[in-house]
């Protein structure tokens, strides 16, 4: 049986028509980047991003994992195929702010080498909540990335320690 470990509510990945929002569901076997909605950030910049709704397309706590994984619009990274995982600190031109980038090199279930790159872009409500708590944006983004690291560490276990690199 496959167990849910964590949900990173928002990451952003490049798409043919611009960046797209994904929810990242991490189980004990794989990480599923589930397409949430096409982001308008590319057109509207930071303002557009701020105007986007944070409503989730899926209920990740109850959604059928297999259904999510089999959706061809989603990206599935099998944990046993991960060769390198790097959470890198940088700058996102999409959000025009500091961002952590998740880079994963892996082999898919067919044995083909693949890589995925996603920006850990905190949802607006998270940033709003932190702002209310008196936490500045930079620290909030760092906190979001740290939580993501914790989630991956829990999902991958000790075996992934040698394959992971964390800048947070």
């Amino acid at each position, binding site marked *: 049986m496959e167990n849910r470990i964590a*949900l990173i509510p928002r990451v952003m990945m490049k798409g043919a028509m611009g960046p797209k929002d994904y929810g990242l569901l991490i189980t004990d076997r794989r990480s599923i980047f589930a397409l949430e909605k096409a982001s308008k950030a590319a057109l509207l910049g930071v303002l557009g991003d701020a105007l986007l709704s944070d409503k989730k397309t899926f209920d990740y*706590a109850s959604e059928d994992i297999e259904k999510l994984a089999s959706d061809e619009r989603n990206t599935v990274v099998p944990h046993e195929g991960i060769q390198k995982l790097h959470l890198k600190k940088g700058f996102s031109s999409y959000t025009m702010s500091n961002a952590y980038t998740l880079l994963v090199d892996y082999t898919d279930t067919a044995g083909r080498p693949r890589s995925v790159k996603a920006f850990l872009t*905190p949802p607006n*409500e*998270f940033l709003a909540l932190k702002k209310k708590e008196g936490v500045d944006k930079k620290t909030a983004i760092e906190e*979001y990335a740290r939580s993501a690291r914790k989630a991956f560490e*829990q999902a991958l276990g000790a075996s992934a320690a040698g394959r992971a690199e964390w800048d947070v």
Partner: protein
Amino acid sequence: MSPKPVRIIAYILIVIGLIGLAWSFQPTRGTTTAELPTGQGYYSYVKVSMWLNGHVEGNFEVTSGGGTVRFFVFDSAQYEDYSDDGVGSDSMFTLTGASGSFSEDLPTTSTYYLVVDHGSTTAAQTIDVTYKVSGLDIKYLIGGAVLLAVGAVLAVVGLRMKAKAKAAMPPPAVQSQPTGEVVMFDKKT
């Protein structure tokens, strides 16, 4: 039965009932062709039900057979007498001729009759009678009122069923405000 179809039926009945009530105030227009066979004692009539009071007017014309006819307006008692003896000595309105027009008030709630019979001849005759009756039409009035009442009862029943169904439904789950934080699932799911 679920509440929704009951309410839909109720609303349909109410609408039809209201149309019936409105229609009962409309003047009734009609044209009839009376065929009187050869021989004595034949007559033809149009029955008009009236509530409260109203008015009837129109005209008649012998279109074949020639001669004249007698045209009457009777109330129900007068009509009973006429149908017994065929004399028509007591009427609200009477006119003998090959054609003519009539106009008469219908003073009370009753059934009235527009009657035509042979006048100067016993030969077969065809008579066209055109009439307009103003006033409350009891058929539509009662029909509309009944449908309206049934519709209202059904509407109340439907609304009560809806209220009961709503009360029986579990309250919607309280959803926590999303915070956008990374979620750690703390149990095996």
